[in-house]
């Protein structure tokens, strides 16, 4: 916590110095001015390319559906309403998938973070039997995998196909996160703290719970954020493992299915498919485009909402990873 504040202060200081230095050197050569203009322009354009699609998607879900259908909503929303979002409540499958995705995000992240913290702590304990061997045993799994088919057959053999636990259990041990926690404990938490606690007779579990866990909050927040985003975005496991359990599809999988219904959803319904959309939705939502947009927006919104608050954790995450190489 303090180290983070320190880092922020240092960064701000460095930035100020950087400013000063540059201002001093600023020579108003015409070449410099041209370079600056081009530079600003290129970055502005790229930034717009990055955010405009989100904006476009959003205004098309809240504008008048008839105008949207005609393709007239391109830059400014018109006839703002939120009915499309309310209508989504009638899409039964979607509601279930939303619940599944939230449940796996919360449970999966919780278990992964606790396990990473605990294992990260254990591998710093020098007197563990076979410590370096077992640590390597965990870490080496980052660099190989058997391939998707053996993985699938293994999950089937374990009875984890068409089961909610397939989302949670395989993700509990995350070697990369364990490395991050281990590095953090070794570098940021003084060993004397643990030593004095164990001299006072504290057990390992107690040391973990009262010293390590509270003090490693910054790194745990970082891996929690990455873990949560990963769970929210996960698609492959749902696609491959839940083939005969549509109730367990994640939100991303559901969105993928909706996007791939070639015609609009109403046509799909009249063809007699059971996509779970009630008749009233069909009558009111004349085109599937808006529904697809709205579902996509609902899937994006949590990430857009969380992102600004968590940005520093994201950036911290990649930096710690980089130090490890």
């Amino acid at each position, binding site marked *: 916590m303090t180290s983070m504040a320190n880092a922020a202060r240092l960064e701000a200081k460095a930035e100020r110095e950087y400013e000063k230095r540059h201002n001093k050197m600023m020579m108003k050569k015409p070449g410099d001015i041209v370079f600056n203009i081009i530079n600003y322009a290129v970055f502005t354009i790229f930034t717009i390319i990055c955010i405009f699609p989100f904006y476009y998607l959003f205004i098309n879900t809240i504008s008048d559906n008839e105008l949207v259908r005609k393709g007239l909503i391109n830059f400014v929303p018109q006839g703002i309403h939120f009915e499309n979002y309310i209508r989504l409540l009638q899409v039964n499958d979607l509601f279930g998938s939303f619940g599944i995705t939230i449940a796996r995000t919360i449970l999966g992240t919780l278990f992964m973070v606790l396990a990473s913290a605990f294992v990260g702590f254990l591998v710093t304990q020098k007197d563990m039997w076979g410590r370096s061997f077992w640590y390597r045993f965990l870490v080496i799994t980052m660099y190989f995998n058997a391939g998707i088919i053996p993985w699938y057959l293994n999950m089937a053999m374990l009875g984890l196909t068409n089961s909610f636990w397939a989302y949670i259990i395989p993700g509990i041990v995350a070697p990369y996160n364990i490395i991050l926690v281990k590095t953090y404990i070794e570098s940021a938490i003084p060993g004397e703290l643990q030593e004095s606690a164990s001299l006072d007779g504290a057990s390992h579990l107690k040391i973990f719970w009262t010293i390590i866990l509270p003090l490693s909050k910054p790194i745990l927040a970082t891996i929690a954020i990455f873990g949560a985003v990963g769970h929210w975005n996960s698609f492959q496991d749902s696609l491959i493992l839940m083939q005969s359990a549509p109730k367990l599809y994640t939100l991303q999988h559901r969105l993928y299915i909706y996007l791939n219904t070639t015609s609009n959803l109403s046509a799909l319904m009249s063809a007699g498919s059971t996509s779970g959309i009630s008749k009233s939705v069909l009558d009111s939502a004349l085109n599937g*485009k808006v529904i697809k947009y709205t579902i996509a927006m609902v899937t994006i919104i949590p990430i857009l909402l969380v992102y600004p608050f968590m940005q520093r954790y994201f950036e911290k995450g990649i930096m710690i990873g980089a130090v490890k190489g």
Partner: protein
Amino acid sequence: MKKEKVAQIAYYPYRIISVALLVILFFPGLNVARVSGLINRSTSLLTSGFSYGNLIANFGRAFKKGWVLESTMRLLNLSSLAICIGIIACAVGACLSLGNRKCKFTGNLFSTVGAVISACAMGGIWSAYFQIAATTKPSKVEPMFQNFFYIMLILLVAMAVISIAVLVLTGRPGKEEKFEMETRFKLFLMFLPFILLTFVFCYLPLWGWRYAFFDYKSGDTLSMANFAGFKWFGQLVRNKSTTRDIVNVMKNTLAMSGLGIATSWMPMAFAIFLSEIKNPRFRRFVQTFTTIPNFISWVLVFAIAFCIFSTDGFISSMMINLGVWSEGKNFLMSGSHTWLKMLLWGLWKGLGWSAIIYIAGISGIDQQLYEAATVDGAGRFQKMWHVTVPGLMPTFYVLLLMAVAGILSNGMDQYLVFENSSNTAQITVLDLYVYKMGIVKGAIPLSTVVGMLKSVISVTLLYVANTISKVLRGETIV
């Protein structure tokens, strides 16, 4: 003294067998209690023991018609439960065997009782099998005897014998002795559950490579009868259409990875030019918004692509409104420039994010270098080229080597979501090909072969990259 030494040695098989037995509990494929085809394929021994409802889920009709007696299933259920409890007792015993004499003795009592109970309960499963085999309707009930039964029985009997032996050899602990265990073993026991999880989810799939050597269709069992040797490996070169597919897929894979590698300098350039912008607010703004696309999934990227490039998306409606086109075009359905499009989507998603590591790298470069360069009369671009770029090169090399090592693994999400009938020939990369062949079409052995070769080549490449890095820079990358 000698007795204790013998006991020490006997503890090794004791521990190994108890861990093996514990793992077996979780595997539906190794469920000795699955004596009838009506029992769900995904029921493990643990489930058979603890969930009677799950065990008899499909037996409603069989009970009603009298094909199977309910008492038979009860027997099966109770026997499984006894085996489970016995095996858990053995595992507890094995854990305690790491402690002092008191721990060991108690653990031995546990495992002796547990192993004996389990071995006896195997008899219950045996008799349940014969009751089911005597059914009047074998075609519906499908009695089946798991050959694994014998292996399990041998393991349990061995466990019982060793337990009794070590019980005798260790001897009774003194009255005042307390339960104690060395710290190193205590820590290890805390670590053990995670080792088991890693083993089950990361190492055990390697055992699935054996499918590459069998004629296997989903639902079959593996036996010597359908052993195929290297037939599927040969198929890759002998079968014309498979070879053509593989060549095409490799072309796509290498092209897309190659384009990725060819543009891997772009995040560095992004960072360098961004740092030339003097307004910190603007820098922050750019950095924030260009990293967002990295955090949405490929499905959502496709949703974005859909709303911009489909028939009634942004581009088409703009063009129609401006009167340039008379009707919308669907860019996503066209098969042209697929590689380039995939590259651009990758850049859209990843460029801003990949630049962060270089931005941090730039702030780590010694400022005196810039000052010295200024004194020497270096201009802006000269400083960028002669100070900043060399400062970032180590990071660049590491990432480049990792990219080369991962040349076969482009992942499948991106290509799966963007795939359609008109671009499938250009977009199918190795990962997607394996998925489609194995999971969608069910050609499990052939796709296992391809996946296996890919894994081996990838690990080799990583090893080579690591060695190169060690030789050239004196540092490893993994």
